[in-house]
């Protein structure tokens, strides 16, 4: 119960910061991507509450905001884990077996792509090309890139984050 209250207070504080951040984008339809990126930086993800604020500030429809968020894999609709794993499914990684790496990650973490582990430690996402095709297949954990992967290398990498 207490943690829930604390969580609410934390979120309130973050939403306040989002309001402040949006001040500079008032009425600027073209600032959608920057605004969303900054909002996600503050809150960690983009819940409906945040989307409404962005829509109202930029004077665009909520539908446009949601459409944009779901188009880009970078944006999250749900809270993410402490360590965010992104598996590149761009063409080069894909042809070099990124799918198998993703399958193994799902198996090891016990979650499906797009989800977060129950202990909020890892979240797993697929993404488009990360620009490291020479290292294909690659994954990124937070800001760390891991390349030339095979499914068998997955448990070892995850161990680093235990």
């Amino acid at each position, binding site marked *: 119960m207490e943690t829930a209250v604390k969580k609410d207070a934390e979120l309130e504080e973050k939403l306040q910061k989002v309001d402040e951040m949006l001040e500079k984008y008032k009425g600027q339809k073209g600032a959608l991507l920057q605004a969303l990126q900054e909002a996600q930086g503050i809150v960690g993800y983009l819940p409906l509450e945040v*989307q409404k604020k962005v829509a109202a500030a930029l004077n665009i429809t909520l539908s446009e905001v949601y459409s944009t968020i*779901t188009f880009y894999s970078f944006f999250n609709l749900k809270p993410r884990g402490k360590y965010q794993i992104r598996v590149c499914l761009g063409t080069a990684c894909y042809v070099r077996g990124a799918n198998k790496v993703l399958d193994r990650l799902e198996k090891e973490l016990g979650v499906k792509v797009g989800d977060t582990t129950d202990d909020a430690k890892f979240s797993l996402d697929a993404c488009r090309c990360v620009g490291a095709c020479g290292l294909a297949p690659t994954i990124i954990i937070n800001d760390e890139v891991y390349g030339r992967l095979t499914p068998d290398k997955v448990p070892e990498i995850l161990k680093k984050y235990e």
Partner: protein
Amino acid sequence: MEMVTLTIDGQKVEVPKDSTVLEAAHKANIRIPTLCFLKGINEIGACRMCVVEVKGGKALQAACVLPVSEGMEVITNSPAVRESRKVTLELLLSDHNLECPTCVRNLNCELQKLSEELGIKSIRYPGEKHAPRYDDFSPSIVRDASKCILCRRCVSACHKVQGVGVISPNHRGFNTVIAPVFDLSLAEVACVNCGQCIMACPVGALKEKDDTDRVWQALADPEKHVIVQTAPAIRVSLGEEFGEGMGAIVTKKLPAALRRLGFDKVFDTDFSADLTIMEEGSEFLERLQHGGKLPLITSCSPGWIKFCEHYYPELLDNLSTCKSPQQMFGAVAKTYYAEKMGIDPSKIFVVSIMPCTAKKFEAQRPEMNSSGYQDVDVALTTRELSRMLKEAGIDLSKLPDEEFDDPLGISTGAAAIFGATGGVMEAALRTVYEVVTGKELQNIDFTEVRGVEGIKEATIDIDGTKVNVAVAHGLANARKVLDRVKNGEANYHFIEIMCCPGGCVGGGGQPILNAEERWAKDYREVRGNAIYEVDRSMKLRKSHENPAVQTLYKEFLGKPLSEKSHHLLHTHYTKRPLYPEV
């Protein structure tokens, strides 16, 4: 304007410099197939149906977004072009729910028509299909994503034409789906039920909620006294469903058709449109003369009403409290008419034929039951009526001319023009002028409020009082007028707003015209002109001269804005949220 000359399929064409190749071909009567293209509304080059070859160019280009240039040589019919179109179409079909014979758009589907024209005989790409998503929670509009081809015509209609914007392409690539936020139902977001998305849809991905079964059941029930009312705009559109030209006037065929379907009485919403003018005209005068809230804004259009409730709740007090003609009709039918005929109102079943999908939502509003019964039991669109007639083997064009029944079928030309943008304003002015001045209007045609211009303004001199009026149709236009009112930039006394482009003649329940038909003729103008022709042909053209309405006041209501009128014919509005809760 600067002109350029290009060659299309060996034919020289001269067009304005800012034209597209598609427009140039159109001018030269060279047909390039399109699917996502909707002239003036959706010109985005998404579907690749309209690809052409340009001499000197590497890849095929989408003609709908390709600017013309001097000396350009275009080929619209080469093997490469034909093959590309076929491949595109087959890929679209590979993920399309091919239940064509049972689809609401069977024989009126642009995808089906194109497959036939391009000679698609098999689909070479059997592949993954989308999981079906079906949303029928809205009382007005049904979405079926299994038939959606992602052309975005509905999105443009919703955002650009209506300024509503509750559907967008969500997600990406193969997972793209046109839907409200968080995949909610249209019933859960600030959708106004206008149905302009349906009018824009080339396939069967969007359709009206079909209520014909409920009407068939009522008609078959000997206990029920089933009566029907038909909106002004139906008489200039239903004919199109039976092969008559755009805007064909079928006023006298309508009663014949409805009688043959088995309705006990065939009445006319035009009667209650005249009644609306009596109430709304009086309300306007009351507000004008006694310092009431101005501008007064008309309340006949249920899409507009819901729009106001969601998007401009601060203007709800400006709305006329008058129910729409559809609802007034129901309230009068279940009180006055029931009493007069000695029929138990619980046995009366009111069906309305409307050019509108938002009327379905309006009919089921909980506050619309001042007689103790829901004013209107079922609201059908023009399209649903057409389907019922076809199912019953009734061919509209082969019917004799007949008249509407007394007394709720008697009407004037002022009521007929409710069907076109500016009509309610004009009808109100005809009556208000004569009531205020006691003089006969010399010229009853207020042409300055007619026509398809998005926003029309006029100042009318009523015995020395200057009345500023504005008329807007299509909600994106309405937004402009409302923002001016909100910001104190306009000094209007009276505003007419119709939700749909052209007014009710362009309603979301009307016969669906494909992209080519819409490009060839402005349906708003053609059907609108027909409406004014109906007006001209009427003996009586002012609402206060309607003898049946006069009798209604004498025998039952007393006078406009009487207590009884207020109870039965007026309503209130509800502020609704702009954003959904998830």
